[in-house]
């Protein structure tokens, strides 16, 4: 920690954590996958299964890239480490990663069983995990706001 003692709060003010903003893109893709899965399961129109494969694959690959970005950010910006709840959030994010990865692979199957039942179940589980992870991320984001008003 070669930081000047006066700086951390200002750094936090100027540069909020990048990772949660990126992660919102992942959340959008993965939750969309649940909606298109539901559409396919209720219509059997193959277009919806194709949509699911695209958004879930995109969400999963971005999730891995942004996980790497998060690790780099953690290493490069030491003051972020003191945020409460970081460990829990990381755990939640890891659960999303694992579920989404399995879901991406299930969605490479052909036709009905790419979605029903395993893909749909994983999309529901992924979406729930995304919601939990987003909730766990709240203190990380809101702490940054507090830092704005406190000094």
């Amino acid at each position: 920690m070669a930081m000047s003692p006066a700086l951390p709060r200002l750094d936090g003010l100027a540069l909020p954590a990048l990772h949660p903003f990126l992660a919102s893109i992942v959340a959008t893709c993965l939750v969309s996958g649940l909606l298109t899965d539901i559409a396919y399961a209720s219509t059997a129109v193959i277009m919806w299964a194709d949509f699911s494969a695209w958004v879930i694959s995109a969400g999963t690959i971005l999730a891995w890239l942004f996980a790497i970005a998060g690790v780099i950010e953690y290493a490069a910006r030491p003051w972020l480490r003191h945020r409460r709840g970081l460990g829990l959030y990381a755990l939640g994010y890891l659960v999303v990663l694992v579920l989404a990865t399995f879901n991406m692979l299930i969605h490479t199957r052909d036709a009905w069983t790419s979605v029903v039942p395993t893909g749909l179940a994983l999309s529901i589980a992924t979406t729930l995990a995304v919601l939990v992870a987003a909730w766990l991320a709240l203190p990380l984001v809101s702490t940054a706001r507090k830092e704005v008003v406190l000094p």
Partner: protein
Amino acid sequence: MTGRTSDFAKILAAAALVLLAVPPSLHAQQAPTDDPQVGPNPPLPEPRQSLFPTMHLADVIGWKEGETPKVPQGLKVAALATGLQHPRSLYVLPNGDVLVVESKAPGGEPVKRPKDIVMGWIESWVTSGGDSGPSNRITLLRDADGDGVPETRSVFLDHLNSPFGVALVGSDLYVANTDAIVRYPYTDGETSITAAGTVLTPLPGGPIDHHWTKSLVATPDGSKLYVGVGSNSNITENGLQAEKNRAAILEVDRASGRWRIFASGLRNPNGLSWEPVTGALWAVVNERDELGPDLVPDYLTSVRDGAFYGWPYSYWGQHVDPRVKPQRPDLVKSAILPDYSLGSHVAPLGLAFYTADALPAHYRGGAFVGEHGSWNRDHFNGYKVVFVPFANGMPSGKAEDVVTGFLTGQGEAHGRPVGLAVDRTGALLVADDVGNTVWRVTGSPQQVGAAGD
């Protein structure tokens, strides 16, 4: 080197899963020839879907000068022609001239899912020795003295659209392009046709055109043509609308070009041929993938008028495929059993009944089958020409290996057999589409043990 591409698929899956390692498996070489699934009643395991389709393709190394496939004692194999461009099927004209149909996949199959990109990428690593020249043409080989060395070689028909089947009726030569049956005028002895063709009937073609080879045969009286039209997907993943008039054998009236569906539920029927005793139409059929290494057996079957053989709703009779929605129990009930399983994923694309007498008598009346070889299986299956003995118009025993040695001990491919034909001298011809060779198998009792082969 063996299974480089499959290792890639595993690395992909393993990398994605990180903590959840996919168990690695060693790739053995050629599967034992004693496949319990070969025969009329193959044992069928429960379907099993993996996280990513097993992709095990053989690296293509081609044939070096002097290398040939292997044949059993009493037979001899030699190249009839080399340096071809994806020779896929063969047709012997009445005067003995051999037509070699050189053909490439139409290309342009639209990318509909991320899987298409990944699988296309993996497959592109093992294409046959690159795109080295023009294909989609028919080359004529003339070996008038029957010594296995053609005296002339000429481009017979050029600028075709992924052609496969050929049939001659009188002076009308029919070529089954991937999108149409086209008629050309042919006179005996011609080595090249320049006349423009006339479309007899369009066939289901692009833009997807997943199974694109259109096998063709004419009835002995010349009144009808039968054409095989493969499905537009593995198992309806391109939607049921894309399967209209596909996975079927069409009966085309030669005079009018009108056609009807003769038999359906045949996922990818090829090698349409007449069984010599009964005169029945037979075909080899490529069944569906991605249900496990031992599902679904590809088969050799007689094709009955109006019959339904299961695809996509069921396989091997009434085994329902869970991937198809909506399901059709009414059609599944009507699905009939194929006659003879060739084993899973062997990819039969060529069929020739043997009625000549130049090969040992053992082969007379039976069927040779060209097996292009598996991709959706850890242990290779196929990659050879087998012989199925027949009695009274039905298969009468276990298939035997006839032409092997397309794979090396390291799991690389010299070539892959596809279309078959019997030439005027009674020799068996084998098109090898990645070895870019036509092989000629002759009987040679006097040459057994001779040096130089």
